[in-house]
Each structure stands twice: as structure tokens, then as C-alpha cells.
């Protein structure tokens, strides 16, 4: 990350304030633990980072916000301790996606590389679309996109790069949702309200956890002094 001149000059009090403010935001997010507060937490963590390093990630944050206005664009790389063939097979069975992508209710495989998707969004309106595989190079790359006339434009690309002599896979995921041209429906608007880039990045981490550990770690529903017995 580039440190601007401005951020260098602002070390000292600004750095301290960023650290304190960032810490408070992070602490708040940790207390609330909802996805909306996750954004606050991410902002807080960015400020903490700035405070800790004197580098200013604001430029990048702004960039992400402007992207959000145009839709959702996620790039994320994770390394998975499984062979590219294993990881490819898992993704090629596209019905597997809702196992780690909470924002998807279901994906159903149809014939000819086509699939029917349903998003998990709040509200009474369902949001469905149909996608088709447009590139499929086993063990290397998989790419799909929504068919013409869908209610939402969605594209996914997954690259599987061998690592550690093929024992592991670098998984490079590109995942996007764009509003359709013209007036977007209420269900599409809900998708952009409910789903964040940060969430999709977490879901890609969940893919790694599922493939490696066989499960996604959770404390959801565990006991504590906050729950009455």
C-alpha cells in the first residue's frame, strides 16, 4: 500500500486518534457482530492499521465504496491445502456454492452447463437468475455468467493455481453482481442492500475452511452467561 505524503505528515496525534477511534469502532463491531457493524469494524480496523503503520488506507476505502455504488466486485485469493483437481471438482459441482456462500439460498444444476440460482435476501420477493458456464478448463479455470435478460448481472471466475508442488491450491476468485441496465427491481435492490463485498470475501474464506477442515468454525448458538438456562 502506498503511503501518501499527507499521511506521513499526519503521524503523531492523528495516528494516535486513528488508533483510538479505530479501536473503538472495532470494539463496537465486535460487540454487535452483525454484518452492518462488520463494515464499521472493517473501517475501525483500517484506522487501527493507519494508526499502527502511519499508512493511510482511506484511498482504498473510498475506492471500495464507489465500487459498491455500482454493484459488487470481489477479488479474493486464498490458499487451500488441497490439490487443484480437488478444489476444481468442488467448484465444478456448482450446487456446492450455497454450502459456504450464505448469500445464496440454492444453486441447481441444469443441463448444458446451465444453472439456476436463488439469492438469500430479506423480504418477501425472491431473486432468481440463470447462469451458464462459459469457460471450463479442468483443474485450471472455471468461469460463468448470467444468461441474457437476467434480473441481475452476475459473473464468476475461479482460477486454480498449483502451489507447494501441487499439494495446495491458490484459489483466485472474482465474483461480481451488477444491477441490470434500466430500472432495477426491488429484489435486486435488496441484494445490494443486504450483501457486502466483505461478506463475500468471508464466504470465500469459508470455502477454504470447508475444504480443509470439513466444516466452518462457529460459535453461533454456543452457551454463555448472556443466555438464560
Amino acid at each position, binding site marked *: 500500500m502506498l503511503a501518501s505524503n499527507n499521511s506521513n505528515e499526519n503521524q503523531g496525534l492523528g495516528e*494516535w486518534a486513528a*488508533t*483510538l477511534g479505530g*479501536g473503538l469502532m*472495532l*470494539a463496537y*463491531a*465486535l*460487540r454487535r*457482530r452483525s454484518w452492518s457493524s*462488520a463494515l464499521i*469494524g*472493517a473501517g475501525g*480496523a*483500517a484506522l*487501527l*492499521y493507519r*494508526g*499502527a503503520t502511519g499508512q493511510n488506507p482511506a484511498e482504498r476505502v473510498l475506492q471500495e465504496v464507489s465500487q459498491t455504488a455500482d454493484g459488487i466486485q470481489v477479488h479474493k485469493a486464498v*490458499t487451500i*491445502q488441497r490439490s487443484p483437481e480437488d478444489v476444481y471438482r468442488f467448484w465444478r459441482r456448482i450446487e456446492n456454492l450455497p454450502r459456504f456462500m450464505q448469500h445464496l439460498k440454492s444453486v441447481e444444476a441444469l443441463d448444458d452447463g446451465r444453472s439456476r440460482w436463488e439469492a438469500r435476501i430479506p423480504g418477501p420477493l425472491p431473486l432468481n437468475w440463470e447462469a451458464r458456464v462459459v469457460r471450463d478448463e479442468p483443474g485450471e479455470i472455471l468461469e460463468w455468467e448470467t444468461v441474457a435478460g437476467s434480473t441481475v448481472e452476475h459473473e464468476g471466475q475461479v482460477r486454480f493455481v498449483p502451489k*507447494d508442488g501441487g499439494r*495446495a491450491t491458490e484459489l483466485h476468485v472474482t465474483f461480481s453482481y451488477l444491477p441490470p441496465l434500466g430500472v432495477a427491481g426491488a429484489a435486486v435492490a435488496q441484494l445490494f442492500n443486504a450483501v457486502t463485498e*466483505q461478506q463475500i*470475501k*468471508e464466504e470465500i*474464506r469459508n470455502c*477454504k*475452511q470447508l475444504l*480443509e*477442515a*470439513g*466444516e*466452518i*468454525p*462457529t*460459535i*453461533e*448458538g*454456543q*452457551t*454463555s*452467561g*448472556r*443466555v*438464560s*438456562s
Partner: protein
Amino acid sequence: MKAVCWNGIHDVSVETVPDPTILNPRDAIIRVTSTAICGSDLHLYDGYIPSMRKGDILGHEFMGEVVEIGPEVMNLKVGDRIVVPFPISCGRCYFCDHEMYSLCDNSNPNAWMTEKLYGQAIAGIYGYSHLMGGYAGGQAEYVRVPFADVDHIKIPEELSDEQVLFLTDIFPTGYQAAEQCDIEAGQTVAVFGCGPVGQFAIRSALLLGAERVIAIDRFRERLQLAGQVDGVETLNYEETDAMEELQEMTGGRGPDATIDAVGMEAHGTGLPALYDKAKQMVRLQTDRPTALRQAILACRKGGTVSIPGVYGGFVDKLPMGAAFNKGLTLRMGQTHVHRYLRPLLELIRQNKIDPTVIITHRLSLEEAPHAYEIFKHKEENCVKVVLQP
């Protein structure tokens, strides 16, 4: 069940809470038969670690009997008696695969937070804040153990709870600290801090071939406990200039390796406000900020500084020039407990070490609030508390 809950600064209480349940296929539930309070629990108690929530169940040193297992746990059965390591490890990621269990990629549900703070995902730890996963701890009658197929060692009947309980954390932590010193026969190791981890580091250094260990603290009972061991000399830094003594005792060369068994875990996530408060408190109580600096300054040229003491955030005025110009090796990190379970259990079986000697207090779970108080204030010569639920 009964569980020790964190309510706020200097406020823990024993509450009746729901029993834990299986949440994931590799979970197990154990009935806790013994649990201990760790020095690092005191920093939760003192409120230095952010992201604790009122009602969080404390405790990362515990053992017990398996009462329920998830469908994917094939190597445990109900009734097995196990000790559980404090870091939660999936056993299958790159780091677990390379026996770096405390660096597990997959055990922290709040990994993204640690990614922002530390650059990468940090493993989950029982009862140690939501930053470290928010897992309910084991100072309770029952506890849920994720990845139970990997995160346990079975204990043979002939060994008592007290003999093996410290395999959860402090024995492996002291042992790893000594191992990191790459001790050669005839060498001298200085250990700063004679709390439970320091005591195990001292004994481990001798087991690993050190000729001489110099133990530094200010609490007489802790120095006495260290001094009982053959080959250990003690320094009370309130009564003598420990830094000068260390050079004197080693003919001006300095100890071949130094161990910081004190740490600065009070830094938490590195908030300066908390940090300053911590620094202040720590100076008043245990002189902690100086331990790492002293370990660096005392160590001989080309030697190793091993750091089992926990750090969470940022360090002020670290003598980097001394470390660099003396060509020191700094080794640190949370303990890869799983790696040490078998060999250390074997040492206990062969009576090469008696972990029970550090226990000063045996109390019931209900007495936990009192136990935290005496441990924090070092009252009643408290070194280590074991709680029996």
C-alpha cells in the same frame, strides 16, 4: 451448568448457564474435571483485552471426560479422559500440517479481524476474547471442544489430573521456550519471570541440557520454588542489580540464551489508551515492560532471546540496536501445544518432571472469584490455582 463468567473489569462470577451443545460435526463435549487459572486470564480480569463481552465464559486450561461426540469424531468415545490444548487447531491446514498448530488458519470465526490487525488470520483460543474467536472457555462444568479429533490427548488412568492438567498450556509453553533456545551442553540460560511458565521453562532448560539456569523475579516464594531445582541460581531484582549480576555471573559474556516469561499481553489489540494503562499498571505491579528489554540487553552476543510471554499489540522502545548489533536471534509465538503433548506426557510418566509442584491452591469452581483475586494480588503466596468443578 455452572461456569465462570466475565462481567467486566475485576468482576467474574459463577453463573448458571445452559449446557454446551454440539455445533459442528468435529465437536465434542467434555465434563471438566480440573481447570486452572492462567496468568493470561488476569489480563482479561484486568480489562486489558478488548472485545470481551459480559457473560463470556473464561478458561483455556482444562481437562475432563468426554460425554458427547459429533458425527465426524472417530477417535474418541464417551468416557475417554482427555487433556485439551489451549489453541484451537483444525489439524488439516498448511500450518497444522507443518506442526505449527497455534497458527491454524481455520479455527477463528472472527479471523478477518485479526487479519486486519496482524496481516493474517490468527487461531482461536478458548475463553480469550472475541478477537481470538469468542469461544466459551473451560472454567465450567462442561465445555464444547471444536476439532476434538485433533485437539486432545488421552490420559492413562494411572496419572492424576494434577499431573497432566498443565499439558494444556503452561508446561508446553515453558518447554517450547527452552527448546527455542537451542541449548548446547554446558550453557547458561537466564529466565525472566518465575511464574508458572517461567517455572516450566527453567525445568525444561535443564532437561534440554543447560548446565545452569539463572532465574529472575521479585517474589520470594517464586524464587524459592525455582531455587529448589539443582542447577538453578536465583536473582531478586528488587534486592540486587540483576543486569549487572547476570554479567558478573557469566564472566562478562552474558547468558547464552534469555527467556522472557513475563510478556506484555496487556496490549491486547494495541490501543494506545489500553497500552498506556497497561504499561502503568504493569510497572506498578510486575515491572513487565522491562523484561523483554532486559532479556535483549542481558543476552550474550550471537545468543537467542526466546519469548513465551504473550504480546498483543505494540512495543515501545524495543532496543533493536542491541538486538541487531549483538546478532541476536529472537524466537517467539503462541505454543504449538499439540506438538509437545506426547513427549511431555512421557516425561511426566517417567517422573522426569513433577508439574504438581507449582500448585499452591486447590479450590472449587464456586471459589473462582476469590481465586482470581488472590492470584492477581499474589496473596497467600499464590502461584497456581487449580479449580475442581
